[in-house]
């Protein structure tokens, strides 16, 4: 009796998998087409902070003196992190961020942007410079000196990280520190 149940389930699954495999190709074209049209028509235009809304655009100057504009990064997956030097969990996640970033290649099409909330730094930019040096961070650190972008993104506690997909939509908002495994998982689960 038990044997029958188990074999029925297993054989049923194998048949299902075979059928699914043979039907897979047309199906995947179908779904990509529908998601595209959905986003183009309905969701893409709306800017906001909720899931699948278009991430608000901003332009900031980095510590290295370059300008970063979010909308120019469309087509890439963007990790948008907000942090400050005085925040312990931000310190904890920085080595993971750096390790994650150092393994990225051009093929990955992933950008890591760690916005420093400079307005909240007591000693200003020099403190950020010291921090970046001691943690040997190599990714771009835009400075939000007026906390305008921080407010635009509704960041109350740090670190807060927005995962932004290739179409510039917010895929996920995570409050709290992220390690390298989680960063990889989040990037893999995003379009």
């Amino acid at each position, binding site marked *: 009796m*038990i044997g029958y*149940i*188990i074999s029925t*389930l*297993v054989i*049923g*699954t194998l048949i*299902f*998998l075979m059928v*699914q495999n043979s039907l897979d190709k047309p199906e995947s074209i179908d779904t990509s087409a529908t998601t595209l049209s959905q986003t183009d028509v309905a969701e893409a235009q709306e800017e906001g902070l909720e899931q699948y809304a278009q991430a608000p655009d901003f332009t900031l100057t980095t510590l290295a003196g370059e300008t970063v504009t979010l909308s120019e990064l469309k087509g890439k997956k963007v990790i948008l992190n907000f942090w400050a030097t005085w925040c*312990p*969990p931000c*310190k*904890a*996640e920085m*080595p*993971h961020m750096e390790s994650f970033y150092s393994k990225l290649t051009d093929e990955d099409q992933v950008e890591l942007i760690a916005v420093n909330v400079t307005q909240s730094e007591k000693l200003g930019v020099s403190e950020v410079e010291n921090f970046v040096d001691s943690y040997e961070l190599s990714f771009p650190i835009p400075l939000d000196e007026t906390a305008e972008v921080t407010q635009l993104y509704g960041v*109350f*506690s740090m670190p807060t990280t927005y995962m932004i997909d290739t179409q510039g939509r917010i895929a*996920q*908002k*995570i*409050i*709290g*520190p992220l*390690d390298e*495994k*989680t960063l990889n*998982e989040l990037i*893999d*689960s995003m379009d």
Partner: protein
Amino acid sequence: MQYYPIGSITVPSSWIAFIVGFAITYLVIRYYFGKTYGERIGNVFFNVIIIWKLSVILTDFSTVLHYPLSILYFHGGTVGWLLALSLVGLHTLWQAYRQKWQRIDQWSLLLALLSWQTVYQMVMALLNEDNLFVKVVTITMFFLLSILAFWSYRKNVNTVSELAGIWIAVHFMVSAFQSGGFLLTTFITTILIGLLLWGIERVSARPISRKEDVQ
């Protein structure tokens, strides 16, 4: 995987599903088998959580060495989870051998782990995005499996390892429908649980014949 805000942080849906599963399991076992069995299950879950959390020391040794605060903020991930399951599984197996577990011990463990998995799967189905058909299949299959297990216990039919076999087969079928990489971990979890239940049946006090056990 979907993240949800709880207080000032956001947590992955799998944590919520784990905790809800644990809470319901504890209540079910407490009500069904009494305090002793409830506490045993509680210990199993707490040990798994603690090992999983602290295993970051092993999985990410160099970071923890440089930044000891990492222990507070991070956990062992999939590797830590499997490590926790294996260690707690072996400990439970040793306990079953030493204490000469009876039928009720085996079944309380099976029903506890199965209720946990069923609630976990249901909560995950509700909290994550997937198509409706997959959600319905997941919820229905695990629900039916739980009913079958509780019915078998009441009616004194089937053994724990037989139920574990059906469980693995059901989960195998459900994972064929589900999508996403993290689901693999849950399937491995089920296989490990199946092995544990089979092992416990081997090492427990064995009645001279099945009939005697039933009486």
